[in-house]
């Protein structure tokens, strides 16, 4: 386990300050968790997607006709 108090002390630089494998694993797990979490809270998607070609045609037809 990384001794952070010693790591943060610039006067004590003779130590091997690299994070231990377990710390790296934890950091990786947290980052992965954040990634999955961010992916899982996205916007709900429609069950049926609009067809852009149809939509464009309809917009043209609706807007190009005179409506009373």
């Amino acid at each position, binding site marked *: 386990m990384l001794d952070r108090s010693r*790591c943060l002390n610039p006067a004590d630089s003779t130590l*091997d300050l690299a994070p231990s494998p377990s710390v790296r694993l934890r950091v990786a797990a947290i980052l992965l968790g954040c*990634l999955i979490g961010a992916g899982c809270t996205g*916007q709900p998607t*429609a*069950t*049926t997607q609009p067809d852009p070609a149809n939509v464009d045609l309809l917009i043209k037809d609706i807007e190009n*006709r005179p409506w009373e």
Partner: protein
Amino acid sequence: MGMRRRIQAALRREGLPLERFPFSCSGTRQSSGRNSGEFRYVRCYRFVECALVGRSMRVLASILCLVLLFATGCSDPAQFRLNEVELLKLQYQQQAKQEALDAERAQDVVDALTALFGTPDHPRFPYLLGDSDPARDLVQLENLNKAAGAVSSNRSGEHRGLYREHCAQCHGITGNGSGPTSGFLNPYPRDFRLGKFKYKSTKLGQRPTDDDLWRVIVNGIPGTAMPSFRTLNESEIVALIDYVKYLTIRGRVEYKLLAELAVLAPDERLIDLDWRRVQTEFQPDPEVGGGDARRDSYDDQLAALVETYFDEVNLWSRPPTKVPEIPDWLSQRDSVFRDRVNEGRVLFSGKANCAMCHGFTGLGDGQTENYDDWTNQWVKGANLDPRDAQACAPFLDAGAFPPRAIRPRNLRLRVYRGGDRYVDLYRRIANGIEGTGMPDSTALSEQEIWSLVAYVLNLPYEEAQ
């Protein structure tokens, strides 16, 4: 390494000697003072370096960053969700023909709605009657663009994506009340698509005024999860009001189009877009794709679609009901007030029949079996027992909320969701509450309604009888 360069640049700016700060975890001993600026820089750098010094860690972090970049950049744009609950309800109903509700025909509804109202990122609101179109006064496209889309702000601090920033977590992108938090809330967030708003100044069956929506957004709804958004500025609140109206009109048009879909013959389409596309591809040959008969049919379908939109737009902008002048005795609490309270007590359990739901003591323990219109819409429509979880399961899978009986208000708590002003209480009694079992009171006179207001206000402090 960028971090290293930045720290080196910072050291240079401060005029600190670089050679005294070895950029390695196995560097030489430092001699800087503990409270000096040098110490702070070294501490900052060493902290970062200790976290990322390992080669494998750097590789792993790089891969994760890359994955994160792809994950955030490749997500689909937000889409409105089809009202699958209504679709399922129509399938349950006897008159609905199963084949009329297949995916191809549901696609017609989605395409028609998108043509009229756009998408959550790019909303549309067609002004089809030129400059004098009343829809321009109802909903302004500028406001929609401010409220829609992803959350962002420009350099001048102007916010966009207001709906997703403040509302969508409960009310959902589609305004169907199915945001991520909705299942945890009681009462459920409002589903705008039904076009019913509880706390308003207009009559039952009418849409709320802008002032009503303003009041709800600014004050919130006491006793519910709806908070106050008083910190938003005026233009932001106006943008949200327009967006709520937009979602409501879109939802109502969707209901109507789905209902039309359910009564179509097997060979009919809501909008004959297949013919329209053939026409586009083979123009100018009018005989290709069915000729004049299909053209006329397409014209009729288009006219019906636009008429449905107009019908919904025209339901708005109704005036609020008038409230008679507030009587002086209501605030003076004198002997007249006590007389009126006694009259209100008699009315409460008599002519007005409030006690049937609110209980004879006003504790809200009269009836507990009623469901609101948002539940009844599919429960009664599909002829289901809301207590039968198994029968309701397909609807819950389609996005409906588990049925929850509405509880009449406990009037002794002095928490009035529609507002605690005299005028609010008067309107709740006179106009009723849309979508609930609370009826309007056309049989009561103005004085009787004020007497009931006096009785309700006096309830929390009522002396033992």
